[in-house]
């Protein structure tokens, strides 16, 4: 390859083929990593999900415990959702939804994610640990301990949950939890969280609009009584 990967950002002019775009030469997934525009990185602005991704950079098998809280819509005597005088949907309880996401030590399966619908019942809190407490295990590291010992948990510590009320995230955003090697931390694992706001992303792509397509398909399949996503 004459242009070489190092010259990626100046790839088109350097190769003297001004009429070709990068996707003609590279896998669109590769292009998306550097330039974007091929595939959506967030559900928003078009689809009503919160995407929680996890990234394992510890070179060990890691299980992430991601928990969200959502407000569940109340139902009236007819079993239907209803609104108050201000037009807001009435909710009657907070529901916790813990999810376990397994990741491997190496390769493409070191990352994964889950979509949480947020249109009818808003997602209000996103964090690590089954009960969103600082003492909960945020991740379980399944390393080869001495004598074949089982893995261990790494506490949430001061990686506080993100809240909708505080504006930490919105419906349509992507939240990314990263586990990485860090000396001086419990288990030698550090934790970090990132946010990609859906409102700042485009709504047109050269590739499939993944999350909008999913939402449309599921709504068409199940109609009014859909089980999300």
């Amino acid at each position: 390859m004459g242009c070489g990967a190092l010259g990626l950002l100046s790839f088109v002019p350097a190769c003297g083929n001004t009429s070709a775009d990068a996707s003609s030469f590279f896998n669109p997934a590769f292009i998306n990593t550097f330039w974007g525009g091929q595939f959506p990185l967030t559900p928003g602005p078009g689809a009503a999900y919160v995407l929680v991704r996890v990234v394992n950079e510890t070179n060990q098998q890691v299980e992430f415990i991601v928990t969200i809280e959502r407000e569940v819509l109340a139902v009236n005597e007819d079993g239907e959702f209803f609104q108050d005088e201000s037009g807001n949907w009435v909710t009657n309880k907070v529901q916790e939804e813990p999810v376990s996401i397994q990741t491997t030590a190496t390769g493409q399966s070191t990352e994964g994610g889950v979509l949480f619908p947020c249109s009818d019942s808003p997602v209000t809190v996103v964090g690590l640990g089954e009960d969103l407490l600082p003492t909960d295990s945020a991740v379980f590291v399944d390393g080869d301990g001495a004598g074949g010992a089982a893995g261990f948990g790494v506490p949430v510590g001061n990686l506080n949950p993100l809240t909708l009320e505080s504006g930490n995230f919105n419906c349509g955003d992507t939240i990314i939890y990263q586990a990485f090697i860090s000396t001086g931390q419990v288990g030698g694992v550090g934790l970090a969280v990132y946010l990609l706001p859906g409102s700042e992303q485009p709504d047109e792509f050269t590739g499939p609009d993944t999350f909008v397509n999913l939402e449309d398909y599921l709504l068409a399949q199940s109609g009014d009584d859909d089980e999300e996503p």
Partner: protein
Amino acid sequence: MHSDWNSTFRFLRRRGIGWWLAISCPAVFICGCNTGTTISNAPGHVVVAFNNQTDIDEKLLNYLASVGLDASSMLPRVRVDVRITFTDQSFTIVEFVTGSENLVEPDYAAQASTDLDQPPLNNFVGNCDVARVELDPGASAEIYIPAEIIQYQLVETTSQGGQTVTDFEQRGVINPAFRPLQVDETDDRGHVTLRRNIGVRDVLSPVPDVICGSNVVITVNGTLTVPFLDPVSQDVPSVDQDDEETNAQIGGRFEFNVSVQ
């Protein structure tokens, strides 16, 4: 096209001075408490979603209502292990679990908790590129049977008058639990020899070479049913333990459809 996407991630790392930031800044974004640390954009995503479109047989609903459970708006609980293999041959096995968490007759609610309390999961988002999506080899989809099924056996007894009488006698109980959904058995020519839960053409089909950005939606349709042994009781789930065909169909009849969007 945005050329600065890989630098628009906002770093919310809270270590050491995290509590100080949290106290001094109502929200990290508003205060601009960013350190500028970034991570790369994702190459794109493939979503594997599990869509449970099953329902409950009316006779079973009536039985559950008779024992105090209104299951008319509930969804059968289905569990399936799906293997997602990436192009580098690494793989993730995702256990999808959907359906109502309290669909079990009340007398068994306590012991059913380990099965029914498992948090639901109906989707997984993987990074591109995905090589294959399939049912985990060696695994079966499962459905939760929410009612106990009394097992009977037809036995011959001799009455005092010396007459031979055949009657059903209770032999055991199948407790509520997850039950594997099994594929019909066939002969060498493909003719069905024993009808079970899933037709040979209705199994979960694998999806190879998934295009980046696609959605793989696995939909299960069917009706959760349990047998009612008429000669004994038409209102209580029951089965002749020697009736191979009826036993093979406990759980009901289902089909899997896989679509790529």
